[in-house]
């Protein structure tokens, strides 16, 4: 679905390579978690994976980014948008600014894809129901709480039905309930064959969700492997990522000489 080979990227007007020599492969149904400290390059990788960098924001890309086997270079973003969805880190960035209600905001992408009204309505309703934001349908998208805006942002991409969905910290502003809802929605989506790339600081969320975790450090891949092994890797702390609670709990118990029955803190 997504394949990156030897990808390096530099923002326009900057000398520094923000991403350096990345290799990444995501298959349909995969849920890949992306972790790393602030500044590691997670958001940049999301922009590159969705084809917005360099196509829309400029900069220099070397290496190869392919979606469905076709290079993203030179493909217009509206064309990529039919298969790749991107949810921005800042949900305010996501807001189109041209709709008066949340319903129309969520429907916008589907309308732009040329779907029939009935199908757009159905997808819009489904996406809003998945994230339990039906009650917001008639609200002004510019006047939402941070968490509500984030759910609307996710819904507005879900309604487009992308086959690769890239989410940049989709739960940063969400309460535990909202975080669980997004997690469950993403799991259901992957079960239908959608490939997911999720940048996230909340490793507890990734723990139960991801099949694979990639840890970025200084724009390079520091760790890459099955979710359980990366999240339990002691090297995670050195690159500024906190392991999930269950890992820290098990570690603390072991340090204090308690014997933990195998599997007591399983995922």
């Amino acid at each position, binding site marked *: 679905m997504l394949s990156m080979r030897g990808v390096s990227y530099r923002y326009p007007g900057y000398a520094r390579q923000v991403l350096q020599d990345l290799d990444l492969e995501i298959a349909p149904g995969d849920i890949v978690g992306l972790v790393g400290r602030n500044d590691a390059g997670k958001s940049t990788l999301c922009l590159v994976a969705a084809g917005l960098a360099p196509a829309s924001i400029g900069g220099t890309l070397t290496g190869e980014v392919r979606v469905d086997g076709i290079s993203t270079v030179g493909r217009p973003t*509206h064309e990529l948008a*039919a298969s790749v969805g991107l949810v921005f880190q*800042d949900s305010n960035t*996501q807001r189109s600014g041209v709709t008066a209600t949340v319903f129309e905001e969520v429907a916008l992408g589907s309308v732009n894809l040329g779907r029939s*009204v*009935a199908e757009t309505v159905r997808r819009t309703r489904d996406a809003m129901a998945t994230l339990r934001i039906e009650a917001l349908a008639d609200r002004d998208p510019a006047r939402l709480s941070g968490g509500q805006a984030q759910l609307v942002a996710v819904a507005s991409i879900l309604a487009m039905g992308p086959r690769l969905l890239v989410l940049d910290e989709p739960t940063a502003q969400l309460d535990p309930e909202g975080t669980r809802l997004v997690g469950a929605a993403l799991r259901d989506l992957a079960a239908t064959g959608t490939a997911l790339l999720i940048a996230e600081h909340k490793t507890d969320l990734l723990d139960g969700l991801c099949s694979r975790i990639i840890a970025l450090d200084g724009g390079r891949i520091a760790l890459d492997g099955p979710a359980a092994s990366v999240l339990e890797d002691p090297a995670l702390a050195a690159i500024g990522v906190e392991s999930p609670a269950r890992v820290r709990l098990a570690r603390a118990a072991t340090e204090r000489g308690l014997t933990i029955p195998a599997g007591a803190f399983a995922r």
Partner: protein
Amino acid sequence: MSERSARRRADGIDDATTAPPPGADQLSEADAAYLAGLAPATPTAYHRQNPLTKATAATMATLGAFVLGGYVGPLAILVLGVVPGAIVAGLLGRLVRLAALISLPIAVSVALVSVFTRAGETVLFVIGPFDATLEGVDFAAQIIVRLFVIAMALGLFGLTTDPRALVVDLERRGVPPRVAFAAAATLETIPAMIERAQTIQAAQRARGLDTEGSLGARVRGVMPLVGPVILSSLTEVEERSLALEVRAFGRPGRRHLLWTLPDSGRQRLVRWLLVGLFLAVAVGRVSGSLPAPL
């Protein structure tokens, strides 16, 4: 061909984009009613005019006021065109206040500059090295009248048209969505800019910047706001275009919009009449067959 679709064709609207799209038969009555309710509210007959009709009226009034010049022409446009529209829309008072507010700052500077710098025979009074002439006053007054008429015409359009309705309508007529959306996004940044100025001001005040107190202090306090407001608004436009791109905005081809605004053959006729009237006046003015501006 039904009468309705014949009329639509006559309106130059592609039937394919407005006729019930495939699958619309599956749309329940309740859904159809819900979608119709999403269209912007149109409380009066003037609001109900198609956005393009209102835009044409505003544009022709603006250009007409320019081309005619003098007092009689622009005032005729105001009294015969804009004011009746505003009365029908039920917002004459609001419109006059808005237009005065918009034109006041420009009017003051135009008055200051032209009254004192315009050469002329009849000196009215002298302040220092400057003498105010009758010709200067006349010139300034003409510009201010034109300015006010234009502000009224554009204000009437702005107050009676949801920018989103214009976008939807332009898009339906085949205007590139990028152009249509850019217009609405730009309009949308104006309230956003005001809001942001307040946020930045609150943040800077929290850091001890004086934005209250004497006038001098307030001016000094506002200056550091200007940079951040303009810069963050530029980023905003940049961000917005990314947001639109990930929603497949700009994708060529047909779209099935959630709601559309009615148009009619009569409105189409009115639009062409307005354009024709303007062209006649412009030609008359250029060829000299119209009397000089009064």
